[in-house]
């Protein structure tokens, strides 16, 4: 992998399409696992904990964790509006599990007054598969990514409703026989109920990196 030189030699990559720098929102959750998955793809990665660090990246991963905690912490460091701007400006963002909840325009079974960043036209139900004893792993077929993906669901959400512009990449059939989307994409926003960062299979991260590269080239 080669990266073009940033001519200005400055850390501000947000306006520069020549170099992909992926941030991982590092307020709480399995930040390290996402960093490891991205690093294995030879991508420049850095933690994002405040608005100043957000402007130094041109794509972002929102990790798994506790969605109520992450949204409160994002609020306290003044990251909610900058994150909404970041999405509105066409940057690629991927959220896994808690990250999916944070990217949803609407959530069900949230904590009273729970705030999301939004951007993805969907309704997500928190802890939809049940409590921790119901957490599971399964082999998933993912559109455009491949089959037999070992998907790990931990107190996971599912997607209850998607808007017209949202593409469903994978679904899971639940005990009651209904099908629920567990991976979706809208433009340069990607979300999954499961945690690809907990496995050594980096196909989902590879897909996101390609997405992020096209997002930066569209922007230039």
């Amino acid at each position, binding site marked *: 992998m080669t990266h073009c030189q940033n001519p200005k030699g400055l850390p501000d990559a947000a306006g520069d399409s020549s170099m992909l720098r992926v941030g991982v929102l590092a307020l*709480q*959750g399995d930040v390290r696992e996402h960093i490891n998955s991205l690093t294995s793809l030879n991508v420049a990665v850095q933690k994002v904990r405040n608005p100043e660090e957000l402007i130094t990246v041109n794509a972002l991963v929102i990790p798994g964790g506790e969605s*109520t905690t992450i949204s409160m912490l994002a609020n306290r460091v003044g990251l909610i509006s900058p994150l909404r701007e970041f999405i509105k400006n066409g940057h690629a963002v991927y959220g896994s599990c808690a990250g999916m909840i944070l990217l949803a325009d609407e959530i069900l079974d949230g904590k009273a007054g729970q705030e999301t960043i939004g951007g993805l036209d969907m309704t997500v139900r928190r802890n939809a598969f049940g409590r*921790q004893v119901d*957490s599971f792993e*399964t082999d998933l077929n993912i559109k455009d990514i491949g089959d037999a993906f070992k998907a790990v669901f*931990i*107190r996971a959400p599912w997607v209850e409703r998607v808007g017209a512009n949202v593409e469903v990449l994978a679904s899971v059939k639940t005990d009651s026989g209904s099908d629920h989307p567990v991976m979706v994409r809208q433009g340069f926003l990607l979300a999954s109920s499961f945690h690809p960062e907990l496995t050594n299979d980096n196909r989902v991260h590879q897909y996101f990196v390609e997405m992020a590269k096209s997002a930066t080239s569209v922007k230039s």
Partner: protein
Amino acid sequence: MANANSTGTPRVKQGMAEMLKGGVIMDVIDAKQARIAEDAGAVAVMALERVPADIRKDGGVARMSDPDMIDEIIAEVSIPVMAKARIGHIVEAQVLQSIGVDYIDESEVLTPADEANHIDKWQFTVPFICGATNLGEALRRIAEGAAMIRSKGEAGTGNVVEAVRHMRTIKSDIAKLKGASKEELYTAAKNLQAPYELVAQVAELGKLPVVLFTAGGIATPADAALMMLLGADGVFVGSGIFKSGDPAQRAKAIVDATTNFDKPEIVAKVSRSLGEAMVGINIDTLSESERFAGRGW
């Protein structure tokens, strides 16, 4: 769609702990406290009948909580709910699993039910966390199926000194394995009284194979930040919050200090005007039988 869903796998159990990293888990004794904890930004709550400070004060046998009380807490909050079982008490753990708790703490804070054996945690779908004072103890618990470890500290004292000792011991035990030859690892396994495979894994990873939290005596935002600085993945706060003057404010401050442990200006900001901290106990004044950390082996 593939329907071969597997529950209770090591990846699902250990992965759950990964999601808690960078967070604070708070002891709560009723739904009202659980609400305060969730509103402050806790990543999970630990449901128990009495916080460790009261267990010390009241004496007697400390057991698993009333399932009714755990149900109320589960109904109140959307974050994970953990609960404690006595060391070696297989049935308390089965009860907790059946009512749907998200993690079981096989805890020395309760009175041990078995003085020789811990629970065989591989038999359960629900994951377990166990306390440890050093690397050997941590690896013995992992060998029994623990999916998460916490340094023990001395619970209910408001004194962070034992938490620091245990975290430093675990970290330095790990550091000693780095670069050790295979011959030395066999000897290390013997000295640590832990399975060779786990010892070799720690030597290779440079860390425990599971998430390592800290617990016992954390009472202030600075205490929480200190433990993160020493390498904890996250923090348990027991008596420190609800035995203080302003629990809601202190809970929020400890969450902020845990996230921003390496930013002293933020720790300073959240430490202001918190009201009274819990009254601490000097560990030296505790007799051997009053110490919880010696329970478990």
